[in-house]
């Protein structure tokens, strides 16, 4: 089964992927940070039963609290779970579909967090998937809902629709021309925020930004998505303009930078995560602009980027690796991927 990040659509445009997240809680239960153990067990049982899908589409349960730190980190690096869940010690888990497009986080900040991801710019599909799962769960469990405040969440920043819609965007030209700060300021006026690749509390890496709505109450789900689409269109236009500017003013330097990145990645014997992300980001734009006249890797650049992250690397090599050794293994993995 092809996972969403193995679909080459993730490398074809400025928008890498689209994501919709719905936060839901059950009536008559305290929010996760206040739940007693017995309540938690009964809650999880109810939700797992409610989420059961017909056999061919069954969701697999991953008991996150039972995983090793590397396994948890690797799930986070694949955008399946959040940093909050990585750090949780209480029982928690995620139900996930085979293609990893749909997942349901259990007992994170809220009882339920439905997440759907699609490759490329396809938020409507992600939205339908999330809503379908929401409707399904709702048939069996009773949601905490108020006619004035909407879906009740642990943190008031999520109340109402409980929806966070986002696009993951690759913005190397806006970054290179020093325009990102202006862009972030401008989009905040539309109630849209830009964060690093792993969401709240993380730094941008590989020029990848997650843009999402800030407001969840007082707008319909459709209005939120329409607004986000408008903003992402503006940001995409700006990225293309900056790209054209760079091509007009410093095409040779740009081409050189891209080819040097390819040279380093195919030959380096050790490389840090952040260096790898930067060079892979250059490769991605190189292929997108049609600059790089070299063999394209079989795997998507995006997936290679995810696999160079510390947790995923450790999980792949299955051992405790530190410092230099991890840099060597990373370099070896990348050489392998770019040469096969």
């Amino acid at each position: 089964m092809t996972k969403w990040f193995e679909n080459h659509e993730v490398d074809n445009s400025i928008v890498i992927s689209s994501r919709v997240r719905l936060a839901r809680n059950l009536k008559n239960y305290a929010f996760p940070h206040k739940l007693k153990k017995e309540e938690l067990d009964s809650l999880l049982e109810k939700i797992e039963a409610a989420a059961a899908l017909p056999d061919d589409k069954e969701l697999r349960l991953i008991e996150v609290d039972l995983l090793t730190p590397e396994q948890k980190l690797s799930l986070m690096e694949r955008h399946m779970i959040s940093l909050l869940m990585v750090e949780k010690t209480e029982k928690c888990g995620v139900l996930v579909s085979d293609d990893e497009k749909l997942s349901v986080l259990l007992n994170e900040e809220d009882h339920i967090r439905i997440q759907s991801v699609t490759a490329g710019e396809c938020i409507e599909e992600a939205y339908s998937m999330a809503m379908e799962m929401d409707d399904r769960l709702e048939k069996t469990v009773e949601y905490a809902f108020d006619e004035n405040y909407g879906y009740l969440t642990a943190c008031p920043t999520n109340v109402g629709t409980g929806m966070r819609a986002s696009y993951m965007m690759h913005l190397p030209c806006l970054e290179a021309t020093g325009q990102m700060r202006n862009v972030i300021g401008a989009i905040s006026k539309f109630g849209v925020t830009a964060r690093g690749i792993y969401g709240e509390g993380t730094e941008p890496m590989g020029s990848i930004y997650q843009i999402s709505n800030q407001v969840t109450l007082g707008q319909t789900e459709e209005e939120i998505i329409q607004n986000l689409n408008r903003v992402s269109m503006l940001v995409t236009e700006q990225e293309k303009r900056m790209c054209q500017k760079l091509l007009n003013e410093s095409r040779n330097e740009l081409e050189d930078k891209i080819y040097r990145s390819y040279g380093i990645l195919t030959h380096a014997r050790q490389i840090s995560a952040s260096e790898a992300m930067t060079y892979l980001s250059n490769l991605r734009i190189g292929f997108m602009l049609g600059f790089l006249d070299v063999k394209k890797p079989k795997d998507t650049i995006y997936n290679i980027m995810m696999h160079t992250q510390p947790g995923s690397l450790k999980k792949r090599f299955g051992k405790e690796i530190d410092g230099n050794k991890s840099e060597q293994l990373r370099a070896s993995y990348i050489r392998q991927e770019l040469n096969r």
Partner: protein
Amino acid sequence: MVCEICQKNQATVHMAEFNGGSITERHLCTQCAKGSGFGDAISFQDIFQGFLNHTGEAPLTKQRDEAKVDVCRCPECGFTYDDVRTIGKLGCPSCYKAFETEINKLLKSIHTSNLHKGKIPVAKGGIFSIKKERNELKKQLAQAVAMEEFEDAARLRDSIRALEKEAGL
């Protein structure tokens, strides 16, 4: 990999430090990262907690309000609004009603609205949709009375009664 500072927690913040031409990799846990001043990425949770602690009111009023609010506990989970301010989260769904006044102010400042306009669960024979429709009619009734349009007001009053009777409200 453990945090290089405390040697205890799992390192979840990985960064590259540039030191005059060379690059050093740092691996820290979130607490040590924040403590070392690397926590430049302020989470929305942090900002939200700031909101909770500074409602922007004059100090004297704030103290009086705080005294009133702190005594009030959620009947379901026992949380006080002070607890909410400390943790940055509510204790249970009933907290929304328990701290309604403060929550309303808070929601207006975060979302510029305190009224849900989106999806409504179909649960309980659509009771939430019915409640929403009833609330809308009540608003219209209040307006009609204010404008002295008493025929309209009577019609609206009857519609509300019929709706409530049908839904068993």
